[in-house]
């Protein structure tokens, strides 16, 4: 198969299949959670569960001061990665073109030089995350194979994207095909690893926040 043919396949049917499995997989995961249901809290409340749920969904994005003081590097690195990843994903011109073709919806892009820099920063933060995972006794102890798989499938699209943009190592067509294939791998793997947190964090924050809101306690 020529590089062009591979790219055409990766762009076309492979992408649609991967996306379809991603969407169905995530929906299944959310269904697996929601279908279990929960009992209502019969204790007399002091406040609104809904307000508490929404509040916690928002406020948990910020760390508690006393924990931040203990692990500033790990926490800041978490922000750098998430913000960097989202900016590159959502504000790189060619990405927006793809979203436009799939969703019919577009928005202004960031200059590609900025995206290039963000890509490097995001990649470095992932590298630091791996170093921290391998060197912290707690992180090493609680990490599973799945954690490293999730790390790898997240890193590959950024790496291949960076290489393709800068025309490094391989011909552009090959790199672009690899970039697309790595994204497809990420889409296929995500619903079956901790990467489900990209959606389920809303639920977990909601549930704790809802109970806290109902009971009038902090969360």
């Amino acid at each position: 198969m020529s590089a062009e043919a591979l790219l055409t396949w990766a762009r076309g049917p492979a992408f649609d299949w991967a996306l379809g499995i991603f969407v169905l997989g995530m929906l299944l995961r959310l269904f697996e959670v929601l279908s279990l249901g929960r009992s209502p809290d019969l204790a007399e409340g002091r406040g609104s569960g809904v307000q508490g749920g929404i509040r916690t969904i928002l406020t948990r994005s910020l760390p508690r001061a006393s924990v931040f003081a203990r692990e500033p590097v790990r926490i800041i690195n978490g922000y750098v990665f998430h913000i960097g990843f989202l900016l590159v994903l959502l504000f790189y011109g060619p990405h927006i073109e793809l979203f436009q073709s799939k969703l019919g919806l577009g928005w202004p892009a960031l200059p590609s030089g900025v995206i290039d820099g963000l890509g490097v920063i995001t990649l470095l933060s992932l590298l630091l995350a791996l170093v921290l995972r391998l060197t912290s006794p707690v992180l090493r102890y609680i990490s599973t194979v799945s954690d490293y798989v999730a790390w790898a499938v997240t890193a590959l699209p950024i790496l291949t994207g960076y290489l393709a943009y800068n025309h490094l190592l391989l011909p552009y067509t090959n790199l672009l095909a690899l970039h697309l294939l790595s994204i497809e791998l990420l889409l296929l793997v995500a619903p079956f690893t901790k990467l489900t947190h990209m959606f389920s964090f809303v639920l977990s924050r909601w549930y704790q926040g809802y109970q806290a809101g109902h009971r009038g306690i902090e969360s």
Partner: protein
Amino acid sequence: MSAPSVEKGIQFIREQIDAPVASFFSSCVHCGMCAEACLFYGQTGDPRYTPINKVEPMRRIWEREFTLWGRIKGLFGLSRKVTEKDFAEWETLVYDACSLCGRCSLVCPVGNDISGMIRKIREGFSAAGYAPEGLIGATTRAIEIGSPMGVKLPAVQAQIGHLKQDTGLEAPLDQAGAEYMVLLSSMEIMNFPEYMEAVARIMKQAGKTWTISSKAFEATNSGIQIGASDLARELVQRVVDAAEELGVKTVISPECGHAYTAIRWEGPNLIGRAYKFKVQHILEVLDEFRGQGLLKFEGKETAKMTFHDPCQLVRKGGVIKQPRTLLNLVADNFVEMTDHASMNWCCSGGGGVSANERADELKFKAFRQKKSQLDELQVDTLVTACANCRITLEEGLEEYEMDIPVVGLTEMLAEHLVEDKQEEQA
């Protein structure tokens, strides 16, 4: 109750898995932040004490049985069943190394209520027969005798008698139609009689009617700490029956953190209905009386003092402002610890740890967290509002040869209470 077994343990854990639990496991990214919030990890550096690791058996049951992916992995032998060995290995993580303080739940970036899950997984461990002797004993005594420390009604009656003899104050027993029903913790009956006297003084001054039930005077609930909902339900039911029989408007949970969580939040969910009465912690009641102008205080403590927040009151109970308002009424030099209110550190003896002698060594290690907070402040007096915190703090301070008296806030308030003269009342 049928004999404990691993199958039963797994079944009980399975029954605890609901949508919130499934969402928590789905969201966990193994970031390890919960370890940073945990005093047992913090003071030992042992990564096994990472809070989320304490519920690993529950996660495995969830993955194998509640997710398609886990079932597929199971078919190919890629996931391990939870076995007797796991129960044996995790027992100390679940009971000895967790005081259910809830700090981990507050710092988890994806919002996982980890301590809530540890409370849940204990249901499986007690059903499997993997629970500490100390807690089994306390729970058995609570069910059979009516108190985890084996305190019987005559001990309460004797205290009521002494109160009358020494101070002339009344502590009415089984008075139907009283507004408040006061619960006590065994610790208060055995070690801190000052509490009952303080309540009697304050109620008299506030002009409120109150009573103690001979059928349900005990506030603590060992069934919740060990994780046996059927027993916990029976203990709650006793209080509910007594309160509804006497027709009281409000049941007052004493200076005890877990008792409050048990009767205030878990109780209605255990018995499957809302109460016909209100439940308040004694500090909520006192602050309400203050707000209504029913209580006046005179004289202020000049000693430098700080307040140890009982975890169950601040994090699980939302009683944060009241102790501070009240303490400032009678203390001139009240200072806060670095981590206080909703981010306080546990005394190290909550969640059944203090009833579990096996955990003593670990408990004293964990106490070093509180020690460092106190070393930093150099206070003359430590005030708290939980008899279990109080005894744990006293033991810890003794272990580390620190000479700081620990007092209950209610009794300190009673000492400064402005009391009307007898003749003026009539």
